[in-house]
């Protein structure tokens, strides 16, 4: 009798579970495709807002929010920004991406800021038909073979950056003995490897060193740099790290010049006596056409310092809002519709030229910029 009761109880529990699952499944699946009421639409932001790369994410989200405020004023829209903090950790980025997917008001995402965040969120966004537009993820594999069909980026990839650095180091700086340093993260490892290979292919002697992304002291690595080394290429996302490296080379009496990759671009943080840095975007402070927007941003942020990370994210947000507005022309929009419209983007950029994408989601045309750095003075040289 007792066994029978237990069995019946279990059967009821199983039945309830099956019914609940059956009822819950369609609604969970429906979320991504849900039709948005265009009066309450958000764009998600996926980037590091805390942790070691928080400076990057904070600059980006500040520019995205500035863009949203400006767009709303100009177009009478009411876009909001939903923050997603990756902490520069892939598992966290995936969890945050899931949250953005499940928020039916989010119709497009700006980010992931870092390539590893794109790798872990790309398939989630693709399955939800949610467009993600990055303002800084430059790893080649994010668009090679088009693995994430709803992913776009407004910055060129490392397949462009590495050859340009190699070319400049070999041809313009005439360097034959080079040390390449990576910072053991998804951003710098492939980039440093591509630069190392490129330099070797061009006949340079190349040694490879590694530091940790959150290291503040490089004196032990500098001790490994020979006195005859011409250039140290540092693939880092921390501009002040490139500055410390440059000073510690001088401290140990070494003449090698530091060449920072795009992550090192910061006139307030990277200011060696003589150095070089590449950038995926022109510095809008140097563009006469961008003077008014720089003024507006300074007013908006109370003169908060910024580098080259913010403005591309502003453009990524602008791409998202333009597509959503177009999709909302009939009062309702779906994520799939927005993604289709992002693909067809053709709008003017505050960085000069226009924002357009090729079939894989990369920007057209693609170019990196090289600056000579002397103290806080940055001069465009390539």
């Amino acid at each position, binding site marked *: 009798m007792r066994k029978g009761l237990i069995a019946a109880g279990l059967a009821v529990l199983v039945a309830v579970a099956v019914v609940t699952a059956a009822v819950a499944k369609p609604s969970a699946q429906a979320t991504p495709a849900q039709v948005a009421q265009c009066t309450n639409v958000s764009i998600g932001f996926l980037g590091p*807002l*805390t*942790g*070691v790369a*928080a*400076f990057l*994410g*904070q600059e980006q989200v500040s520019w995205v929010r500035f863009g949203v405020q400006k767009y709303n004023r100009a177009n009478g829209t009411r876009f909001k920004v939903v923050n997603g903090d990756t902490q520069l950790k892939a598992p966290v980025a995936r969890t945050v991406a899931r949250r953005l997917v499940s928020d039916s008001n989010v119709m497009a995402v700006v980010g992931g800021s870092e390539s590893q965040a794109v790798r872990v969120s790309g398939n989630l966004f693709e399955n939800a038909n949610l467009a993600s537009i990055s303002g800084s993820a430059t790893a080649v594999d994010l668009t090679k073979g088009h693995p994430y069909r709803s992913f776009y980026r407004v910055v060129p990839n490392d397949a462009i950056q590495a050859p340009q650095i190699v070319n400049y180091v070999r041809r313009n700086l005439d360097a034959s003995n080079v040390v390449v340093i*990576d910072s*053991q993260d998804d951003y710098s490892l492939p980039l440093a490897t591509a630069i190392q290979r490129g330099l070797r292919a061009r006949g340079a002697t190349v040694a*490879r*060193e*590694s*530091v*940790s992304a*959150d*290291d*503040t*002291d490089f*004196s*032990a*690595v*500098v*001790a*490994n740099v020979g*006195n005859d080394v011409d250039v140290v290429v540092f693939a880092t996302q*921390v*501009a*002040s*790290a490139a*500055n*410390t490296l440059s*000073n*510690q080379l*001088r*401290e*140990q*009496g070494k003449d090698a010049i530091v060449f920072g990759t795009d992550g090192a671009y910061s006139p307030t*943080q990277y200011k060696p006596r003589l150095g070089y840095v590449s950038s995926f975007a022109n510095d809008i402070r140097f563009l006469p056409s961008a003077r008014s927007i720089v003024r507006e941003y300074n007013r908006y942020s109370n003169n*908060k*310092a910024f580098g080259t990370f913010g403005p591309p994210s502003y453009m990524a947000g602008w791409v998202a809002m333009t597509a959503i507005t177009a999709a909302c022309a009939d009062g309702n929009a779906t994520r799939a519709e927005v993604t289709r419209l992002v693909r067809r983007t053709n709008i003017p950029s505050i960085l000069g030229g226009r924002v357009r994408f090729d079939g894989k989601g990369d920007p057209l045309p693609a170019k990196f910029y090289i600056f000579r750095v002397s103290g806080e003075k940055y001069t465009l040289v390539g």
Partner: protein
Amino acid sequence: MDWDKLVQLLVAGATAGSVYALVALGFTMVYGILKLLNLAHGDVLMVGAFIGWGVLGWLGGAQDPSVAVWLLVVLMLMAAMAGCGFLGVAIERFAYRPLRRAPRIAPLISALGVSFFIQNSVLLLFGADFRSYDSFDLVDVGVGVHWGPLNVWIIRLVVMGSALAMMLGLWLLVTRSKLGKAMRATAVDREAAAMMGIDVDRVIVKTFFIGSALAGAAGVLVGLVFGQINHFMGFNYGLKGFTAAVVGGIGSIPGAMLGGLLIGLAEALSVGYIEDLTRGRLGSAFSDLVVFLILIVFMLVRPQGILGKPEVKKV
């Protein structure tokens, strides 16, 4: 043998080791008295670095300081030590004292919470940007000792000298003063010390003040010698300082100093030679592997550390 390289690696290791030793002292003092791992200790160092940066900015910045450089450094150290000392006292009062009779896991979790709280408070207050001491503008890197293969920037000498002086001062305090005697008594047996008339609470508060002040000084020294600080830096220094304390023998003050230097030197030398020793299989990226391998070996072979005493329990 490349002597230039070896000498520079030793200098780099000794500098980092001095900082680790100061951090390790804080860990070891608190553990000695409360048997508590103060996991927020690294974040106290970070706060010290920010206080020093604030004083530097207040006094005109590195490019144009309004007082002599030596005075500026002394003021930065004093402000950071005082600020962090009081922060340590506040942490003890609000996060650890209410849990003093709780199971040992409770204050450990509380320490983790304090660590995140401090980190995120600094993030909110100062933002996420890396801040620079610009100490390379304060004193040119050319100023210092340049003798054969030896190139030592004067700021490195200041860091090593200050760390050594503070360690000696602490050692004298603990071994020669009345407070030191009370600290040692409390470390041996808290209840017995209380019965002998020692105000245990006061001793614990003073221990936190001194340990945290040393961490604050370490924060300023890190900022001065390496130039950059951020809200996240405490984790790394805390971890290395903790490793140094364990390797040296947690609870032992000379052990903390020795452990700090050992970890600093091991880290620097492994960056320099790991590639040669492993015939290119491992690169400088694996220097932390060596550091934490040392920790594991000590835990297995000599868990009490170099100068620690094995814990004897009456059964």
